[in-house]
């Protein structure tokens, strides 16, 4: 459930921010506030899901220069969800923890892209992403 919420949150934030041109702050804030208000009412583990959604929305506050496609938010959302689950006991209660997890997800995906581009060639990766 964390993964699904993370992916949806990242994609929604990216879509609102860059496709609907609401800007990264407003789109992330909308997703964050909505998840904080709604998810605890619909799910038993709603508080945790709200935190996961918040984390993924921070990860989606990216520039199109480095992350040009919406589909990349699926990967970032996935990584975000997994890292969020695995780092529950780290930096507990520290403000900025969720954002740091978001940065880890963004950089990890960026690093993976760099490795794939090096081996596959830049054009092939771009074509693959475009076809998706």
């Amino acid at each position: 459930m964390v993964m699904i919420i993370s992916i949806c949150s990242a994609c929604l934030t990216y879509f609102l921010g860059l496709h609907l041109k609401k800007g990264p702050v407003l789109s992330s804030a909308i997703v964050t506030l909505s998840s904080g208000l709604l998810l605890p009412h619909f799910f038993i583990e709603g508080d945790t899901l709200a935190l996961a959604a918040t984390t993924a929305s921070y990860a989606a506050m990216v520039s199109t220069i480095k992350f040009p496609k919406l589909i990349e938010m699926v990967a970032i959302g996935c990584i975000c969800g997994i890292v969020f689950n695995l780092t529950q006991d780290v930096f507990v209660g520290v403000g900025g923890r969720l954002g740091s997890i978001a940065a880890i997800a963004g950089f990890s995906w960026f690093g993976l892209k760099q490795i794939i581009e090096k081996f596959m060639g830049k054009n092939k990766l771009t074509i693959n992403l475009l076809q998706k």
Partner: protein
Amino acid sequence: MKRTIFFLLYSLVSIGILILALMNNTLLHSRIFLLTAILFLGVGLINHFYEISKLNKESGKEKRNFAKDDLKILIGSTLSATITWYINHEMGYGAVVANGFIGILAATLFTPKLAGIIYTASFIGMSSQTIIATMPIAGFTGFIAGMIIILSKDIYVGFGGKGGTSMALSTQLVRLFLSIFRI
């Protein structure tokens, strides 16, 4: 040099979280994932380091003067952290709602750049009371965070989570400072 120092501090926060998670997790597949994440994170950071180095060469030894905009950043970050902490703990709405509310308010009232900084600084107010016990400490941490934002403008640019990393760094630095002076 300043950019390099802040880049290293930011990287320390990011890699530190993964290493601490690696130490806390005993399952094999979790450890494999975390090690893989550290590898890809490392590649991403190395690439970003080259961007920072290029900026260092292009800008040379430019002297930075304290500008009016920097004052707005310091005031904004201090107030944002304080108000978010208040909404989170004193009003009892919780961290996520407090942060979301401040973000929408900031995006509506201020320029995109200042709104981003205010939204980022509100992460400090999301801290638990075991980390930031009182509103004045939240304000002080917000002020320090504002200084870090001013000094590390080019670090992690374009990546989501830049603000969070700088806020986590600020919070930990203030905790260290307060623990040294036993406040």
